[in-house]
C-alpha cells in the first residue's frame, strides 16, 4: 500500500450482518470522497489486507478503525484486541459492536440449547451421529480448527477500550457521513474531535423528539400486538397500546419505523442518562399502566395489574431487543428467556 501522508482507515466486521457496510455504501457518491481522503489499511470487504499485514503494522498505525459486529466467538475477540492495539481511534460502529444488537438476543438462551436446536432438533436435520462442530477436528489429511463459540455475546467495549460509539442497526447514512466529515476535518484540518468515550452520529435525547406523531398524556389500559389494531396514523403509537421503544431510545434515525406505523424497536440504544434501556422502558410503561387504584382491595389490585401486564408479550425480548449485551445483567441465568 502507498506510504503517503494520507490517514489510514480500517473497517472490520466481527459477528455482524454486513448491514453496516451497506449503510456506509448508502452515503452513495460521498464514498468517492472517502476513497480520496483515506488510505485503506484494512477493510476485508473492499481490500486485500490480511490479518498478517495488520499484525505487521506498528501500534497505532491505523488512524481510525470502524469496528462493527458483536463479539460472538474467540476469533472476534482476538481481532478486537489486534485492532485496538493497531488503531489510534477505535470506533464501535453500529448496534452490534455498541450493545450486542440482535445477535445478543442469544444471551436470552444458552450455547447448549443453541447447538441442540441448530444441529439436533429441527425439521430438516440429518445428523444420525449427533455430530457437533468442534474447535479442533482431525480429518484424514490433518487437523481443522474452528473458533470457540462463546456462551455470552459481548459488545466491543466489553473486550477492549473503545473511543467512540456510533449506534444504530444500521447507523443511518446521513449520520455516518456527518461523522466521517468530522473525522476528515480533524485529520486534515486539525479540527477538534468529540471527547473520548462519547456516542456520536446520533442525538442525545429520546426518539420522541424526532417523532412527528401527536403526543398526549399517557394512560394505557392494555397493550396490543401490531396486527391486532389499525393504529391512528397521526397519534403516538404507545398511547394506542402498540409497544414503541421510542421513549427509551436515542434519537438520530429520524423516527423511521413509527413513520410507517411500526413501533420503534430501540436500535439506537438508550438516550444519554440511561444505563439499562430495557429496565427504563419497563419502568416507564408500567408506570402509566392505567389500571388499579389505591382504594382497591390488595388482591383485586394485583390481579388487575397482572392482567394488564400480561398483554405485553415477551418483555425481555422486546425491551432488550438490541441492548442485551449492554444491559446491567447482560445475559439470562439459564435458557428460560428463549425456551
Amino acid at each position: 500500500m502507498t506510504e503517503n501522508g494520507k490517514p489510514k482507515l480500517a473497517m472490520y466486521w466481527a459477528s455482524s450482518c454486513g448491514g453496516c457496510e451497506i449503510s456506509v455504501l448508502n452515503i452513495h457518491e460521498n464514498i468517492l470522497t472517502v476513497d480520496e481522503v483515506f488510505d485503506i489499511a484494512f477493510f476485508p470487504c473492499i481490500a486485500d489486507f490480511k490479518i498478517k499485514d495488520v499484525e505487521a503494522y506498528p501500534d497505532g498505525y491505523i488512524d481510525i478503525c470502524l469496528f462493527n459486529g458483536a463479539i460472538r466467538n474467540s476469533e472476534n475477540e482476538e481481532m478486537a484486541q489486534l485492532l485496538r492495539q493497531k488503531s489510534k481511534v477505535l470506533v464501535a460502529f453500529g448496534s452490534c459492536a455498541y450493545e450486542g444488537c440482535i445477535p445478543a438476543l442469544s444471551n436470552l438462551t444458552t450455547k447448549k440449547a443453541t447447538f441442540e436446536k441448530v444441529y439436533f432438533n429441527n425439521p430438516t436435520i440429518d445428523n444420525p451421529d449427533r455430530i457437533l462442530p468442534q474447535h479442533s477436528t482431525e480429518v484424514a489429511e490433518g487437523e481443522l480448527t474452528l473458533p470457540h463459540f462463546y456462551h455470552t455475546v459481548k459488545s466491543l467495549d466489553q473486550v477492549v477500550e473503545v473511543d467512540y460509539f456510533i449506534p444504530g442497526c444500521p447507523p443511518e447514512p446521513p449520520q455516518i457521513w456527518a461523522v466521517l466529515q468530522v473525522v476528515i476535518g480533524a485529520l486534515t484540518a486539525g479540527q477538534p474531535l468529540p471527547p473520548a468515550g462519547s456516542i456520536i452520529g446520533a442525538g442525545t435525547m429520546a426518539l420522541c423528539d424526532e417523532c412527528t406523531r401527536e403526543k398526549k398524556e399517557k394512560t394505557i389500559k392494555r397493550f396490543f400486538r401490531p396486527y391486532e389494531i389499525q393504529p391512528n396514523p397521526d397519534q403516538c403509537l404507545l398511547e394506542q397500546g402498540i409497544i414503541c421503544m421510542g421513549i427509551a431510545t436515542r434519537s438520530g434515525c429520524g423516527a423511521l419505523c413509527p413513520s410507517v406505523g411500526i413501533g420503534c424497536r430501540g436500535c439506537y440504544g438508550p438516550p444519554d442518562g440511561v444505563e439499562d434501556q430495557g429496565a427504563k422502558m419497563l419502568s416507564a410503561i408500567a408506570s402509566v399502566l392505567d389500571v388499579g387504584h389505591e382504594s382497591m382491595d390488595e388482591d383485586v389490585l394485583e390481579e388487575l395489574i397482572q392482567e394488564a401486564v400480561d398483554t405485553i408479550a415477551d418483555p425481555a425480548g422486546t425491551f432488550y431487543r438490541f441492548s442485551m449485551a449492554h444491559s446491567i445483567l447482560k445475559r439470562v441465568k439459564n435458557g428460560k428467556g428463549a425456551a
Partner: protein
Amino acid sequence: MSDHFEPVIVGFLCNWCSYRAADLAGTARIKYAPNLRPIRVMCSGRVDPQFVLQALRSGADGVLIAGCHPGECHYVNGNIKALRRFTLLRKTLEQWGIEQERVQLLWASASEGTVLAAAVNRMTEELRALGPLRWGEKVLGDNGAAHLVVEEV
C-alpha cells in the same frame, strides 16, 4: 466463599412506612436475620428497576422492595406505581431465569415492625434454599470457561 452460605438481601425501604417499620423492629428489639442491607428511598415509587438489576448484578442474592400498604402511601399512590413496575419486572426476570423468591415486594406500615422482620426471616430462608446467585462470577464469569470447549450435549 465458605461452604456455609449466607444470602445477601438488598432492601429498598420507603422513608415513611417500611423504613420506620424496620426502625420499630429494632426499637422493639425484635431479632431477625441480619441478611438485609437496607437502602432508604423516599417512596417505593422511587425504586427504579435499574436499582434492582444492579443489586443482582453486584452480587446480591435477593432484593426486597418494601412500601406502605395500598391506600396508605404518603404520596397517595407511589406504591401503586411500584406494584405495577414490580409486576412487569417479575414477568421479565422470569425470562432471565431469576427465581421469583429473589425479588419480592412487601407492604409494611410504620407500625408493622414484626411484619417486616418476619418477611426478612422468610426471604432469608427461601434464598438459603435456592443457594447463591452471585451474578458476576456464577452467570457472567463462566463465559471464560464455557467457550473453551463445546459442551457435551
